[in-house]
């Protein structure tokens, strides 16, 4: 992540109601562009996959409303696999349950920010924006600069994500029927999962979820996915509590 310089006094003085902290906004755009390099390929995969599972319009709508690759794929994937509406919704929500932790963390940093900013910023809260908001906390920005940095970063992410998704929707039908292409989604997931394996709790959550999913499939359980998610979440939380 690139270091950002504190804003100048004159810039701080200019951030009165309605004025834009241009330096903070530029930092937000620049910081997010760095992350977008890795996010765009995932967006293309997600766009192509969800368009195949649902429709082009549904793929684009879910990309902007759910605004999370794993939850979007989980929801549409469950529906495409024949799961009921309830199971698909619960699965998508469980995947996005981690957003509660991100929001709770930002609640401390954004104490004193206007409620309308929080309401709008919440629409784009996901790993990249959360990471940049956390990094930005190291700088000494005025409150308005914090808002403008986040807004610029979030807008950059949204534009990049939607463009990548649209590209995936457009090229998806042209992709050949290759077995390896079916692996792109699980491979993308494994890349997202990898950083969590650095902690004991992350490894416990992952191993428990995988074992539970396999056992539930073998046993013919009604909804192996929900059972596996519950088992993994509890295992991860317990592993964290068990640390001396």
């Amino acid at each position, binding site marked *: 992540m690139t270091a950002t310089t504190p804003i100048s006094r004159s810039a701080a003085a200019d951030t009165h109601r309605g004025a834009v902290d241009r330096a903070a906004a530029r930092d937000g755009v620049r910081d997010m562009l760095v992350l977008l*390099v890795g996010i765009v*390929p995932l967006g293309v995969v997600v766009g192509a996959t969800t368009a195949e599972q649902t*429709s082009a319009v549904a793929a684009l*709508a*879910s990309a902007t*409303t759910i605004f999370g690759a794993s939850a979007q*794929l989980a*929801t*549409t*994937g469950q*529906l495409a696999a024949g799961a009921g*509406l309830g199971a*698909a*919704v619960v699965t*998508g*929500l469980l*995947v*996005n*349950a*981690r*957003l*509660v*932790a991100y*929001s*709770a963390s*930002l*609640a*401390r940093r954004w*104490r004193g920010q206007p409620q309308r900013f*929080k309401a709008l910023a919440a*629409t784009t809260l996901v790993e990249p924006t959360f990471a940049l908001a956390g990094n930005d906390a190291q700088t000494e920005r005025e409150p308005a600069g914090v808002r403008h940095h986040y807004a610029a970063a979030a807008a950059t992410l949204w534009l990049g994500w939607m463009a990548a998704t649209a590209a995936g929707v457009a090229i998806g039908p042209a992709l050949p029927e290759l*077995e*390896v292409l079916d*692996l*792109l989604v*699980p*491979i*993308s*997931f*494994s*890349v997202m*999962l*990898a950083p969590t*394996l650095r902690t004991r709790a992350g490894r416990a959550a*992952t191993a428990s*979820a*995988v074992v539970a*999913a*396999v056992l539930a*499939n073998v046993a013919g359980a009604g909804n*192996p*996915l929900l059972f*596996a*998610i519950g*088992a*993994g*979440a509890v*295992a*991860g939380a317990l592993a964290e*509590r068990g640390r001396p």
Partner: protein
Amino acid sequence: MTTWIAILAVAAGSYVFRFLPLLVLGGRDLPPFVDGIARHGGTAAIAALIATQVASGSTGTADALAAVLALVASGAVALAGRGLVTATVAGVATFVALDPLINALTTGGPA
């Protein structure tokens, strides 16, 4: 219609997850166990999705094994600090290289 209801329901619920703590917590923290469930629920969900997708997408044990090895390769590259693109290429290359080999070894001929 089911698809649209699901998308809107997940979108609405996800927004509640994103906004409610900002609205009500202020400077307070979630109870530790609840915080742990929330954080590790996402990890567990992604791991479970990988497991079920590999199981449902594979046409046999050989394909499943090749898929697992591909996932291990991509995860290892990601853990080593390489970007998403590099990790994805590593996983795809592993599958392309190993799938026919494993199929040949297990069936005694090309898949």
